[in-house]
């Protein structure tokens, strides 16, 4: 078994793990993470395939760069949609006060807020 094959299998494994997570979890954020894992698995397969020749296949690298842009755009949109949907669910119509939202964005604060 060569290193490339190892990465091919790893890519497939990450994809399938993501799929498993997608079917198993119910929280939208976790499902979104699952989708991102599936994407990462595919990119891994593509980059491993690019490494079959030396120097690596530039076309596959370019395709993955394009794929990454698409993935980050879609992820950002999805996260905003999920939070908007949750805001509607909790009946909290107004967006929280901007100053307070920004103020608590330093990392230590975020960590404390989100821990139950």
């Amino acid at each position, binding site marked *: 078994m060569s290193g490339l094959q190892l990465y091919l299998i790893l890519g497939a494994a990450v994809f399938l793990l993501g799929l498993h997570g997608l079917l198993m979890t119910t929280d939208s954020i976790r499902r979104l993470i699952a989708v991102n894992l599936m994407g990462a698995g595919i990119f891994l*397969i593509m980059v491993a395939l690019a490494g079959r020749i030396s120097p690596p296949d530039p076309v596959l690298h370019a395709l993955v760069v394009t794929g990454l842009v*698409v993935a980050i755009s879609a992820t950002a*949109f999805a996260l905003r*949609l999920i939070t908007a*949907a949750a805001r*509607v669910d909790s009946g909290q119509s107004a967006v929280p006060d901007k100053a307070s939202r920004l103020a608590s964005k330093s990392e230590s604060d975020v960590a404390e807020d989100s821990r139950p």
Partner: protein
Amino acid sequence: MTYALVSLSIPLLSALALMLAGARLSNRNAGIMAIVTSLLSLGAAWFCLLDVAAANQSILLNLGGWENGLAIRLRLSPLSSLLLLFTAFMHVLIGIYAGFSRRGVSRDFWTLSSLLHGSLAALWLSADLFNLYITLELLGLTAVAMVALAGKKAYKPAANYLILSLVASLFYLLGVALVYGRYGSLDVVLLGLQTQSDTTTRIALLVMTAGLMLKAALWPLHLWLPAAHANAPTAVSALLSGLVVKGPIFILWLLWSEVAPVDLAQQIGPVLAVAGMIALVAGGLSAMRSPYLKTLVAYSTVAQLGYAMMALGLLMAWQLPQMHVALWLFVIAHGLAKATLFLAAGEMQTTLGTKRVSGLRGATQTVPVAMFAFAVAGGSLIGLPPSGGFLAKWVLLEPMLSSPQNWPWAFGVLLGTLVSAAYIFRVVAISFDRARINPPDVRPDRLGHWLALLPALMVWGMALIGEWLIEFLSGGGV
């Protein structure tokens, strides 16, 4: 080809201009601009169609002038020129409806619909698997953003729709990666000359098919569609059902009719055809039971896509060129009819102030034009002669009836027809109940109702040019 590229770039430019203008352009002017650009694009698409009809063959263009395999290739076939025209027409029509009927839309609708127009045009023209992936993502994101236009209550269905749509495109992308790994090419035409039915190709095609079926809401992966389509604003529902779900079907058709090796297509074809038959019946039954009008129309999309899938499956199984024609006639007839159904349903809902099917009592008297449009378009869905739906069904049935071993398929079509008739007549029958009329809340919006009727008349008009359409679609190697 130049006309096709112009037809493609006009809506994209218009979307960029609308974003740049922002609030400087009033909502109404933004709408007028979007409609005018759609009209220009429609004109370009018309000249493009004439070009193709004159050349009577597909035109290939290597972007950037690079050699085959290196460049992304665009292909203008008779089918893609027809789809360009169809897309532009639907945008003009629905744009006029959205801009001038009583139910207003927000400014961002115009940006999104222009982007949708551009992405669809890019999809019809593309002949490169990865490029198709990007157009697929564009299409999916536009559709989600448009569903979210309906406001707060639509955010949750939109979020679910987005996650499913992302998963579906990833399945497709996995297949693209495997295909490139196996054959070292992304070009549809080149791949068609190379593919063999080995394990990798099989897996690649199967994951791509699964992803595309999920995107197109083909049975059994259709469960997301009614929630998303029924929750969107009326104009958006019409665009989603009439156009957006057709994009993945186009790619599916491209994969199986060109990329896949013939023996593999022959193995998988019957499975798809059976799934299409089940979709026809299951979708139809759900439509029949649905208490809400828009959900009924959305389920009818699931059912009608069953015809398209059946035509595709039989095309793969029998390798008969006339199945191409049947498939695309179905797609266009369904697109027109569905535009009418959603516009009419939306108009009746607003006028009568109810979302329920049972609220349509006496609709023939209170909202006669919209109800007439609904019934006329429904007639095409059922396949009454001489509508476009009938034309498509006739082309589909012909080879089935000619040899006795194919009669079970004909039975499936018949069953589908009966179920479609049942849910359309359910609505029509209630509307004739003039004894207990549900009085309208507001005066009917004349323009909206007549606009809803227009595509229904066009789908019946398709029969007039039926012979030409069949010849055009079967010419030029599709």
